[in-house]
C-alpha cells in the first residue's frame, strides 16, 4: 500500500511535527526534552500495548481527536511511575499513588494539548491542510482498554494497527511520553502524501492486511 519512499516521507512529516512538539514541551517544562525519530508501524492490534507494559498495565492516556481535511486520533500514553514523575516536574509535588486531583488531571491534559497542538500546527503549516483539534480527554486505566478506542476506530479499515509512534523523553528523570498517531483509515495518510506531492494516485487498499 505504501512504498518505502512514501513511508520515509510520512516519517519525515512526523519528524517535523514531533520536533516542534518537543520544543513546546521543553518550554513548558523548562527542561531539555529528547525525542525519538518517529516510526511508522504496522502491528497486530495486541502488539501495540506491549510497548507500554502489556494490556493490563495501569497507564495514563490522553486522547485528542483531529478533524478537518484529515481524520485521525492522537493518543499519549504515560506509564504510572512516569506520570507521577511528570507531576513532580510540572507541579513540584510528589505523590505515591496514581489517583489524580482535578488540578493534576488538568495539568496533564494541558501537557497533551501543548504537544498535540504544536504537532498539528507544524503539520498544518507544512501541508496547508486545514486541521482542528478537540479538547483533550484523560483516562487512567489498563493500557489495553485505553488503546482499544483509537485502534477500534482504525479497525473499520484494517486487521492490523497502522500508526506513527514516537517517544518524548524528558532530560532529568527519564520520563517517557509515548505518542501515537492513529489515522481513521489509510486514506488519511494517502491524502497527506498527495498534498506534499509524494503520491499522485488515489490509494485503494484492497488487501486484507490494513495497508502497506
Amino acid at each position: 500500500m505504501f512504498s518505502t519512499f512514501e513511508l520515509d516521507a510520512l516519517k519525515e512529516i512526523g519528524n517535523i511535527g514531533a520536533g516542534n512538539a518537543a520544543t513546546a514541551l521543553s518550554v513548558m517544562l523548562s527542561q531539555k526534552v529528547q525525542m525519538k525519530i518517529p516510526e511508522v508501524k504496522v502491528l497486530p492490534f495486541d502488539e501495540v500495548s506491549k510497548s507500554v507494559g502489556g494490556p493490563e498495565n495501569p497507564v495514563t492516556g490522553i486522547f485528542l481527536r483531529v478533524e478537518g481535511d484529515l481524520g485521525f486520533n492522537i493518543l499519549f500514553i504515560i506509564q504510572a511511575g512516569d506520570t507521577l514523575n511528570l507531576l513532580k516536574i510540572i507541579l513540584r509535588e510528589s505523590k505515591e499513588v496514581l489517583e489524580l486531583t482535578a488540578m493534576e488531571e488538568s495539568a496533564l491534559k494541558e501537557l497533551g494539548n501543548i504537544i498535540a497542538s504544536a504537532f498539528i500546527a507544524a503539520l498544518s503549516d507544512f501541508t496547508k491542510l486545514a486541521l482542528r483539534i478537540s479538547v483533550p480527554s484523560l483516562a487512567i486505566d489498563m493500557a489495553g482498554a485505553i488503546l482499544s478506542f483509537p485502534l477500534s476506530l482504525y479497525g473499520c479499515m484494517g486487521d492490523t494497527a497502522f500508526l506513527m509512534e514516537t517517544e518524548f523523553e524528558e532530560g532529568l528523570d527519564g520520563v517517557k511520553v509515548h505518542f501515537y498517531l492513529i489515522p481513521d483509515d489509510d486514506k488519511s495518510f494517502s491524502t497527506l502524501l498527495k498534498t506534499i506531492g509524494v503520491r499522485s494516485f488515489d490509494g485503494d487498499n484492497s488487501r486484507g492486511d490494513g495497508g502497506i
Partner: protein
Amino acid sequence: MGMGEYKTAKAPALLVSLGLGSCVGVALYDSTRKIGGLAHVMLPDSSLSGKKDFNPGKFADTAIDLLVVELEKAGANSKKLIAKIAGGSQMFQVKSDNSIMKIGKRNVEAVKMKLAKMKIDIVAEDVEGNYGRTIEFCCNTGKLTVKTIGHGIKIL
C-alpha cells in the same frame, strides 16, 4: 485472547481477555455439556468494513455467528446457549459529530441485537461505563469474572 479473536473451550479451561475498553466480550455457554466460547468484539457491524476480505472476528454480527458455528463443532447444542457480556466502555469523552466515537455503546447495542435475533438469552451483563475490564470465563462453572482497576471485581 486478543482483539477481534474468538475461541471455544471445554471444562475446566478458562477463556481470558485482558484490558477490554470499548470492545465487548461475548461469552456463550452450554451448561449441560460444559462447553464455552468467547468473542472479543471490536466494532458493531461488518458493513463498517472498508473492504470485502476482513477479519470477521472484529464485528459483532459476524463474530457471534462464527462463534456459534465453532461451538456446534465442539459439540455444544446451539439451542441451549446462554450469553454473558461485558465491556463496551467509553474510555474518553470526545465531542464529535461522528457517531462512531460512541463506539462502546454501539458495540453493546449491536451485540444485544444480534443475540436477540439468534434467540440467545443474555443472563448477565456488566457493560458501558468509563473503565477497562479484564474478563475470565470459566468453562467449568459458566461464571464470568470481571476485574477492573478501581471499580472492584464482579462475578457474573
